[in-house]
């Protein structure tokens, strides 16, 4: 009997032990860069200014203050309204891209992505040029662009690509056989749309709504630039922390901000889980057929939207080149001479690039190796489950909240990591943490798509697992690895909210500098800096697409059939 018991578990090889150690290290890293900062934030909310425990006093004060509580309602209104506008527009746009034969679909798709490459304050600045007190079209809005109206319009621009991306994916994965069956049963066009198209895209719509809602409620840049006296949660956190140095109340507002974001995240995950088996491997992809009336309608619709996006970008670009709005409209490069407007000058742009490159390199390595360890380590289920949980957490946490947590955690007395505070390193770490989830998911998806038996084959051939990782897994996953790196780069370039509390004078970032310049009243220079960011991240994305198409094809001949 004792013999039987002794044989009941396979001994772990040295390799297994090394991989388990890696998983434990990953848990430690994630706790350090996500878990503990959030914990510090949570604790701070229960302390007074001197760090004494005061229970729920801060929360009571928060809900008793009409001004603060009103911001929560404002945030909710703005998010709900923006979502209601963006989701139908994005659905129609994505429908045009995926289910019609309208011309130039690739161009429309490209234009719809532009806002992703811009910091959120860009649409705010463009709206000021267009509709502000000195705007061209101020009559259209009665000069009242500051406040809710401006925030919602800017948010629609800012969130549009995210919703289009999600819905394009949802609408593209359609099974042509369902449509053929419906046609054969003589269902009307409307009935087919209601019974086949909508149910198929339902999860995409819910997911897009949740993502847009979260983006709006947690965004800081738009409200800061064009919010005027209209307060929202994100600006409140900033005011409490930077303006009034009231860290405890900042923590409380941060927790209030976390609640809707986390809720939307949970809804999204529940919906995603249901979607899994919607499309089987046997499905026949749907290829849209020409239909003149429909195609004309969608061409018109997408053109109007695309012009709107280009107008906002173009306005910011034009504004950045104008000498003195609106009195002297002659063109100049003066606004790009940032030394005149900000002590750091072009250096802040250099800082942004350094941070983005750092986040791309370290973040890609960490997320990919991390996802690989979680997927491939034998046994050790509980700890791997913990990694999954920690890897998902950042997606639910607004950047502003994470940044605040970083102040409390890394700046705490007695934290041995204190030396990181106010360095470039902490900015890189924060960016990696903030955008960890998407990188992890991308890597995990890519890893799940390759044959699960590669490691078994390697073991039978006595080849160490790290060798198969380097020689097989990494080359196969190279496109996904590039995707992760570009995602991290672009997001680190454009983010405002997660770094606003963490920069030091010599590590100021371009997006933050643009915000400061705008605050100081030089809108043209702020627009110029935003455009430099757009140009940089868009250029990197274009390089990525070219590399994907030409370089990978040449280097990885085995991908060709």
């Amino acid at each position, binding site marked *: 009997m004792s013999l039987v018991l002794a*044989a*009941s578990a*396979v*001994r772990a090889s040295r390799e297994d032990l090394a991989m388990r150690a890696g998983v434990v290290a990953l848990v430690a890293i994630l706790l350090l860069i996500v878990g503990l900062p959030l914990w510090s934030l949570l604790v701070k909310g229960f302390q007074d200014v001197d760090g004494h425990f005061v229970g729920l006093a801060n929360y009571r004060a928060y809900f008793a203050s009409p001004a603060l509580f009103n911001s929560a309602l404002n945030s909710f209104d703005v998010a709900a309204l923006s979502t209601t506008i963006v989701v139908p527009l994005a659905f129609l746009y994505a429908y045009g891209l995926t289910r019609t034969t309208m011309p130039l679909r690739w161009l429309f798709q490209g234009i719809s992505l532009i806002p992703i490459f811009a910091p959120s304050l860009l649409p705010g600045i463009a709206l000021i040029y267009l509709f502000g007190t000195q705007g061209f079209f101020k009559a259209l809005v009665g000069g009242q662009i500051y406040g809710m109206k401006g925030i919602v319009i800017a948010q629609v621009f800012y969130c549009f690509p995210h919703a289009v991306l999600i819905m394009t994916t949802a609408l593209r994965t359609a099974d042509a056989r369902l449509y053929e069956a419906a046609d054969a049963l003589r269902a009307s066009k409307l009935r087919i749309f209601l019974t086949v198209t909508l149910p198929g895209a339902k999860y995409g719509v819910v997911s897009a709504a949740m993502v847009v809602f979260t983006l709006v409620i947690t965004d800081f840049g738009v409200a800061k630039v064009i919010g005027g006296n209209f307060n929202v949660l994100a600006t409140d956190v900033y005011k409490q922390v930077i303006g009034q140095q009231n860290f405890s109340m900042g923590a409380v507002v941060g927790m209030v901000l976390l609640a809707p974001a986390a809720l939307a995240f949970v809804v999204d995950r529940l919906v995603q889980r249901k979607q899994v088996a919607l499309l089987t491997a046997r499905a026949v992809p749907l290829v849209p057929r020409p239909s003149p009336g429909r195609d004309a309608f969608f061409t018109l619709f997408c053109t109007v939207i695309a012009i709107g996006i280009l107008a906002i970008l173009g306005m910011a670009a034009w504004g950045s080149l104008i000498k003195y709005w609106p009195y002297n409209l002659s063109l100049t490069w003066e606004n790009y001479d940032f030394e005149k407007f900000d002590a750091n000058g072009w250096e802040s742009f250099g800082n942004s690039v350094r941070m983005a490159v750092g986040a791309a390199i370290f973040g890609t390595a960490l997320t990919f190796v991390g996802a690989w360890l979680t997927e491939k380590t034998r046994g050790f289920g509980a700890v791997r489950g913990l990694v999954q949980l920690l890897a998902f957490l950042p997606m639910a946490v607004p950047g502003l909240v994470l940044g605040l947590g970083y102040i409390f955690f890394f700046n705490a007395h007695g934290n041995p990591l204190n030396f990181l505070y106010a360095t470039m390193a902490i900015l890189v770490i924060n960016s990696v943490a903030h955008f960890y989830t998407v990188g992890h998911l991308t890597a995990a998806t890519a890893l799940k798509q390759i044959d699960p038996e590669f490691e078994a084959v390697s073991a*039978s051939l006595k080849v160490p697992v790290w060798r198969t990782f380097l020689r097989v897994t990494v080359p*196969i996953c190279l496109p996904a690895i590039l995707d992760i790196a570009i995602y991290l780069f672009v997001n680190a370039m454009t983010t405002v909210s997660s770094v606003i509390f963490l920069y030091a004078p010599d590590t100021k970032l371009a997006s933050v500098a643009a915000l400061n310049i705008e605050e100081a009243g030089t809108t043209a220079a702020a627009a110029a800096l935003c455009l430099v960011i757009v140009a940089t991240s868009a250029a990197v994305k274009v390089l990525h697409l070219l590399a994907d198409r030409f370089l990978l094809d040449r280097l990885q001949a*085995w991908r060709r059939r």
Partner: protein
Amino acid sequence: MDQALRRKVGPEGKVSYLEVRNLTKRFGDFTALRNVSLDVAEGEFVCFLGPSGCGKTTLLRAIAGLEPQSSGTIRQKERDISALPPSQRDFGIVFQSYALFPNLTVTANVGYGLASQRRKRTETAARVVELLALVGLPEAGAKYPSQLSGGQQQRVALARALATSPGLLLLDEPLSALDARVRMRLRHEIKALQRRLGVTTIMVTHDQEEALTMADRIVVMNHGVIEQVGPPAEIYRAPATAFVADFVGSMNFLAGKLEAPDRVRLGNLVMSCPIQDGLESGAAVSLCIRPEDVRVRDLPAEAANRVDVTVTELDFIGAFCRATLVAGELSLVADFSSNLIRDLGVVVGASLAIALPPDRLRVFAA
């Protein structure tokens, strides 16, 4: 060790190369393997055969160390490998998905395990050439897996598994993903290769024809236990259980009652059968006969188990016809060659005298 069990699972007179003893594997509440014991002789080709979910793949993966058993022991060449991780066991494996590395050439795939053995480069190259010739793909070295057909990819996978000269070759449904024609050809090639190399081989399959044509011995499994172990002819002719009788080949199950140790009553017919020691008189039983064992030609008037039947259906299969025959409440199918159909003028509605030869009958408790 239980003598009866030893006789059942151990090939007589051969030294056991692989010894599986009392292997049990549980996944939560589900028991995938229940106290499985098995011996495989050196150089033998053994097939694990059974329906999906019967535990055959779990048993193979336990032998490889990929799916560690919950309890029980595995010994390979007298060495207890029960607790060893896969990398410390001695086996080569081929999967249904081939699991070829898509970014490496055929040469690099086959040489993958050789590179880590610190051999000379020229030696490795020579070995790869030798292996590719062995599996009949001498020209494919520079190609990538995606440029090969499914059958060719499976041969490369086989060459890769054999490269390090493992003592045990494990094949996990290696032919299932291939189309019928390629499958037939590869069956013979794998079997011939195995015989030539003399490598002890275990193959998992759900295809009985594959098992019958390739294996030296077949292990029929169901619900996590071994139902029968034996050479293909024995499995087919003398199935030990009703499950094996039903799973391997086609079989008529005729419900009846055991009247005497050598007589079964089917309605108002009484059939002679081989003597049944294990069953009590009066027990409900199934009387089994294979469709091709039903006799029609040269029937003597006093033939045992003679029955007059009517042909009610005739399904054309190709080389033969499957006839449904009815006599009162009795209904069974029989396979008739095209010759026989022509010679005897068998048509639907025709009356026919058949016999169920007693030595071809099997009786199982119902």
